[in-house]
């Protein structure tokens, strides 16, 4: 009977430690999702949109729908870094570019090519409250990056 008790103590001990510390040690987790407050008013959500050849702008959507969220989070992180020094601006621009090259790679993998698009748009979405106490969304394009600027690094689309 000693082994089961020791084994149970170890498993419960790890779970207790993880819960109290609030840390994760895969596969043990403190499941801290939805616990931190979100400040959507100071920095909104950033999304990548695509400008088609005819000028229409559509959201980038992936079958693996968390990709756009993850890219948006990283863009948000970069934007929060941004200040007026030329060095930071350059780092933010380069990192954003690197990220968009990966987005282009994913679009190419999922859609088979990039020919139907001509530019990326980075759009900041901020929620607000209108006079009727309804939530309204304010979308603002903060950057437009033509595909031609990226393809030199990314390589030609496989058309």
């Amino acid at each position, binding site marked *: *009977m000693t*082994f*089961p*008790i020791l*084994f*149970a103590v170890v*498993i*419960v001990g790890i*779970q207790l430690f*993880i*819960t109290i510390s*609030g*840390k*994760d*040690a*895969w*596969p*043990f*987790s*403190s*499941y*801290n*999702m*939805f*616990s*931190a*407050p*979100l400040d*959507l008013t100071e920095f*909104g*959500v950033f*999304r990548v949109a695509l400008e088609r050849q005819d000028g229409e702008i559509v*959201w980038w959507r992936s*079958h*693996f*729908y*968390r*990709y*756009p*969220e*993850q*890219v*948006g989070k*990283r863009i948000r992180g970069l934007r929060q870094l941004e200040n007026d020094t030329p060095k930071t601006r350059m780092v933010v621009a380069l990192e954003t570019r690197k*990220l968009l090259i*990966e987005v282009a*790679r*994913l679009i190419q*993998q999922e859609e088979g090519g990039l020919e139907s698009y001509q530019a990326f748009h980075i759009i900041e*979405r901020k*929620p607000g409250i209108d006079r009727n106490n*309804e*939530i309204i*969304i304010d979308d603002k394009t903060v950057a437009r990056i033509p595909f031609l600027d990226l393809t030199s690094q990314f390589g030609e689309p496989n058309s």
Partner: protein
Amino acid sequence: MPTQLFIPGGVNQVRMFLILFCLTLALQLIRNFGDQFNFFKTSPAKIYGDSPAVLGLFRIPRISSGSFILAGVVLFLSLLAAALGVIPRVSVAVALVCYFFYFSPIISISYVNRKTNLIPIALMILLFSPSIARPLSEPTPEWPLVLIKICIVQMYLSAGIQKLRRCGLKWTDGTFLRDYFLNHYLWGDMSAAMRLAQNLTLCRVLSILVLAFELTFWIILFVPALAYVYVVSGILFHLGTWFTMRINYMKYLMPVYTVFIADVACRWLVNR
């Protein structure tokens, strides 16, 4: 706590759980393999970074497409073998190792990240359970199943405690949940989330219900009669997050949730 915790009694619920757990997990593997292989091919590490290390200590090496397929196939076959009683302890051990190789490269996929965490823990508990190779009618101690239930309890209890730790009871005022709904609408266009976000009173009610559910789930350990009430509430809770935010816990939580029907299923089979 029942007297059969460490002293053999009743029927072999542990073996029954092993069968239900392995079969439902194997089914999920088959159903999702294509999707998961496609995700693997997108090189998720380039966007999400490296997968987490096991226990924060051991990093799983990056594997090729061929190795990923092999890990998936061996995981599936070992689960099937364990369920059918073919050298069950070895099969469970192989499944445990394969879990880490198969899921590590795709851990960032939405329905895998955190949602499969209980699988290796359940496999580890089964690995050290004395009764997994014995007949269903044989009386066995229940501690492995109680341990698995404790792991499920930890998942909900910890989620509730982290909310209280970071926000206190203010988390129930509805604004936190509203912001999460809104956030999901903003990046993912989930209209159901937006509809809920528009109604602060409903967000407040849902916040209270969610926190109450998470912080009281442990009751099932002491009042087994309430287990089905909590299991149904849990399923409704996860279906709610799926429909409003596309957060799908059920896919990989269902195999572990079969622990709650192991007793009934085992008695039914034995009494046939």
